[in-house]
């Protein structure tokens, strides 16, 4: 039974070893998901029937599969195709790919909802000035839609940073894996190390969702946006 290190040391250890990958995976997953998700939303709102159908199918597919299974599909499948790439990078790539594809499906829904809730009168007014549909969309609808999407998007951020913890299951050293190392080396605090881990994640999620969540929704309603 070894001496248990003091609490601050445990926290610093988890952060030092794991924060980098946790944040990297989250950032990549969210940004690729953003680009892909926004495109999918536009496909469903303004695209031809086939595109809309594809986008709808994509959403259903990547919402209906467990993230871990998706990660494993890539983790086992990618090395076959990309045998020349370093294994660690492949594992990171698997997680990023899985996170992005999943996030895109959810972000697509978020943006589609936001676009649809911009008051129709706004587009009418824009067109009455002589703007083309594309101009009205770019300058009037999208700015408002993006603002309306903030509360749901802050929620998606929280989801992705939590989901990045699954990277630990294929050996990537992010925060959850670091906590695992702690718990293995100091078995009396099995549970405590995970409690600490949980609180660390909470620090990353709660402030953001609190500020950009419901409070933002109410602020937007007051500004007269959305509700369409």
């Amino acid at each position, binding site marked *: 039974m070894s001496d248990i290190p003091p609490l601050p040391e445990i926290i610093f250890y988890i952060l030092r070893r794991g924060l980098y990958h946790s944040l990297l995976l989250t950032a990549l997953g969210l940004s690729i998901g953003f680009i892909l998700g926004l495109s999918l939303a536009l496909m469903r709102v303004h695209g031809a029937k086939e595109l809309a159908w594809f986008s709808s199918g994509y959403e259903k597919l990547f919402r209906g599969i467990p993230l871990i299974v998706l990660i*494993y599909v890539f983790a086992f499948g990618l090395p*076959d195709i990309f045998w020349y790439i370093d294994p660690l990078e492949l594992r990171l790539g698997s997680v990023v790919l899985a996170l992005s594809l999943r996030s895109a499906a959810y972000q697509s829904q978020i943006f589609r909802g936001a676009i649809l809730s911009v008051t129709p009168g706004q587009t009418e007014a824009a067109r009455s000035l002589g703007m083309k549909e594309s101009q009205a969309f770019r300058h009037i609808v999208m700015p408002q839609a993006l603002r309306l999407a903030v509360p749901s998007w802050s929620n998606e951020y929280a989801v992705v940073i939590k989901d990045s913890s699954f990277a630990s299951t294929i050996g990537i050293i992010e925060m959850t894996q670091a906590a695992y190392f702690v718990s293995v080396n100091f078995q009396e605090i099995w549970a405590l190390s*995970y409690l600490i881990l949980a609180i660390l*994640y909470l620090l990353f*999620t709660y402030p953001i969702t609190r500020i950009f969540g419901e409070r933002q929704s109410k602020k937007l309603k007051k500004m007269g946006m959305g509700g369409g």
Partner: protein
Amino acid sequence: MILQDRPNPIGELLIVLEYWDHLLSGFLLTMWLYGWALLMGFLLGLTLANLRQYGGWFLSRIASGYIEFIRGTPLLAQLFFIYFLPSSLNIPVGDWKIETSFTILNKDITIILLNYRTLAGLLTLGLNSAAYQAEYFRGAIMSIGTEQLMAAQSLGMSRIAGIRHIVLPQALRRVIPAWSNEAAYLPKYTVVVYFIGVKDLFSQAHHTVAFTFISVTTYVLIAIIFLVTITIISKGLDIIHKRTMIPGL
């Protein structure tokens, strides 16, 4: 090219399907976990929502705190915390189990319905789902509005009676679309129990991979099974929703 010497996906699929009894056992256990977790989440979630909305200052804060904590932390961390809690507190866990067996098509299938690991997994999933379900219930309760409760009280009903007979029945009907969403997607999250050694569908998939060395196809098959299951549950709930609709609610 590197892919030339791999057997075709169909061939691989057939090999994997020879282990259908393992996969079935895993699937049944997954559904078992799903059912209990959903139920637990429902009961606890509804309680939390009521506490948040109608509890006093203290109780509603506790409920909020619980919900924010669960929603702000990863499921995996919650799982490990609960799993390791007894051993950290030096509470003995024991090696007990409750299982059931039956035979299908000449294959024996045994499912461990309950043991320590399964219990820990089930508890985690239930506690987790409760926090998310609570948010849906709270939204529905809020949307029914205080006026309904005021009207009930003006008739002489106590607050609790008003909540029980006027607000909740309406709230529960209104929440069905959003709740169906959570209910349909919950099976996805049961896969985490693999990491504490519960033999769910995901775990059995690993097992099969260990025997067949066919990995991608197996996991894709699992993904498809989940997708189909979720779609069926979703459509089923949709049908129930349409059958029990009340105009205006």
